[in-house]
């Protein structure tokens, strides 16, 4: 079966500015694709191109196996939820949801049935006769989703739908969208700048920067094996520690030396046979630097480190120190004995470590 969405060599220019460069993505039915990146990376433009709201400069776009490159938005069999919800201000909630069907000349009985179905599903029946101005942010969000759901399209598009909500509601709606995706088995493309949203929702993530795709993969792949320094730094909170280091061959092993101020360098041993250049950047997630006393595996290497700052976060305690001239965060046990200004024995787990080439920023292992 052909993929539900396929973007081939897509280019988008505004005048002489290249906004999107050689974009290639495809998703299967039921996939939840998240486009993530900092503002201005072109993710929203890409979504608008998929929707047909922006003409593309080069390349092809297939939805459900059909070439939709030059097809108008209304014939692409898509539905879209916008950041500002874009509810029609003079229409009631019911009219907002049925507007599309009315425009397409669908008979009243079908309209009513679908409206009832969707409003029950989203629990917005009591709101049907209100105008958007009389709704709260969360309610508007639901109505906007209702308007998309009622179309029952091949592909749902979401343009940062949660960014106007407060923090608590955002988490609630996130869970709800995920539940909705699982219940409907629908195919979705979702744009966000929030990497946690990306990790929690996606079955597939596209990380973008400057109009170029940096990496495509499952959340686990993106998290554990970032393709370059940008992805490593962007995905994960707190961010991955990226520490400059020097390597030395020692027989079959490689010695990794991390310089420290006012102390001997930390020397870690990489036992896997990797061919590393002399200067590298080593990427370690905070959760791979833990209290030696609480280390989960025996396969760790320990060192005493001077802790600068301790940040208790409830479930964990984050400790910040200086390694290789960088702030490095370690994720310690909630009941750690670490205190600011004291030395703490830490365990480094190199099982999931990433190595990057400093000049190119590309992954080495």
């Amino acid at each position: 079966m052909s993929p539900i969405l396929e973007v081939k060599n897509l280019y988008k220019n505004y005048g002489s500015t290249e906004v999107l460069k050689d974009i290639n993505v495809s998703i299967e039915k039921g996939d939840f694709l998240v486009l993530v990146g900092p503002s201005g990376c072109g993710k929203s433009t890409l979504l608008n191109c998929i929707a047909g709201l922006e003409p593309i400069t080069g390349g092809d776009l297939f939805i459900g196996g059909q070439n939709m490159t030059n097809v108008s938005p209304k014939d692409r069999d898509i539905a879209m939820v916008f950041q500002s919800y874009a509810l029609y201000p003079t229409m009631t909630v019911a009219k907002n949801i049925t507007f599309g069907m009315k425009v397409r000349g669908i008979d009243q009985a079908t309209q009513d049935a679908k409206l009832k179905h969707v409003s029950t599903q989203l629990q917005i029946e009591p709101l049907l006769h209100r105008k958007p101005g009389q709704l709260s942010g969360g309610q508007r969000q639901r109505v906007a989703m209702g308007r998309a759901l009622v179309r029952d399209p091949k592909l749902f598009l979401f343009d940062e739908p949660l960014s106007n909500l407060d923090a608590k509601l955002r988490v609630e709606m996130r869970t709800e969208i995920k539940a909705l995706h699982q219940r409907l088995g629908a195919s979705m493309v979702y744009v966000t700048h929030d990497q946690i949203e990306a990790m929690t929702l996606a079955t597939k993530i596209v990380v973008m920067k400057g109009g170029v795709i940096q990496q495509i993969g499952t959340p686990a792949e993106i998290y554990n094996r970032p393709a370059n320094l940008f992805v490593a730094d962007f995905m994960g909170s707190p961010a991955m520690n990226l520490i400059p280091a020097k390597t030395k061959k020692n027989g079959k092993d490689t010695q990794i030396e991390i310089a420290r101020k006012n102390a001997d360098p930390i020397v870690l041993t990489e036992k896997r046979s990797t061919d590393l250049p002399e200067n590298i950047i080593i990427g370690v997630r905070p959760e791979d630097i833990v209290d030696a006393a609480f280390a989960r595996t025996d396969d760790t290497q320990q060192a005493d480190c001077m802790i600068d700052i301790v940040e208790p976060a409830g479930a964990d305690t984050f400790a910040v120190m200086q390694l290789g001239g960088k702030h490095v965060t370690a994720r310690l046990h909630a009941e750690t004995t670490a205190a600011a200004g004291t030395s703490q024995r830490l365990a480094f787990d190199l099982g999931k470590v990433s190595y990057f080439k400093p000049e190119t920023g590309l992954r080495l292992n």
Partner: protein
Amino acid sequence: MTDMSYAPTRTQSPTTKLVLRFVLYILLALFALFYLMPLFVMITTSLKSLDEIRTGDLVSLPREVTFDAWRTAWSSACTGIQCEGVRPYFLNSLLIAIPAVLISTIIGALNGYVVAQWKFKGANIFFALLLFGCFIPFQVVLLPMAIVLGKLGISGTIPGLIFVHVIYGLGFTTLFFRNYYVSIPSELTKAAMIDGAGFFRIFWSIFMPLSLPIIVVSVIWQFTQIWNDFLFGVSFSQAGTQPVTVALNNIVNSTTGVKEYNVDMAAAIIAALPTLLVYVVAGKYFIRGLTAGSVKG
């Protein structure tokens, strides 16, 4: 201990406040009186007989109220050689103003919708040129317009005057609607496009229902402009198609012998009534529409 009961020292006593209020209202009343004075003189004069005007005081109330002057002004005052009052010209003005206001408002709304929401190549230049049209003095376009009207074969006719006023009004109406629609998020148009609505459907179902305040602004502005216009009216009309402003001028200027001030005043008030009416009926929307910025859903 900290002092929690800090109060600003510049509080005024209730009496001072009252006095200031009083002074303010007196001033406002004086200004109002000043502006209402001409209207008062017009109305009282129009209700007096000629004898009373000659013998009495300008600002005194009529001793004997008579509507003769109004009747004369409406149906038998002389504008040159014809003596039919302002009635036929009043009708001409209605026949010119109503279609011209409607057409220029509708086209202005469409223009504004396109310029604000369907950014096409050169949209900004197009808009700038239209705006430029607002600043061209009437006199400059008289000759070219006369030639165009002649070529179109509508010179001296009411459709010709409608045409002139529509063309001249488009710059303003487009400006009104463009500035109003530009504050409507473009996502609304996008959402409607995905819902399957086309250009006119989006305009009609989504933008029109939002537009009442700005329609009122456009109608008031255009109606006032067109109704009060004298230059185009006198330049592009002929006997039988003159608007009421031209007729009023003729009544006042073409009388020989005794000046019938009461008839002149009555005719002037009749000529001004429709604009007054439009302001009274739709005025509260006028300010609201001019200041209305965002249309948040």
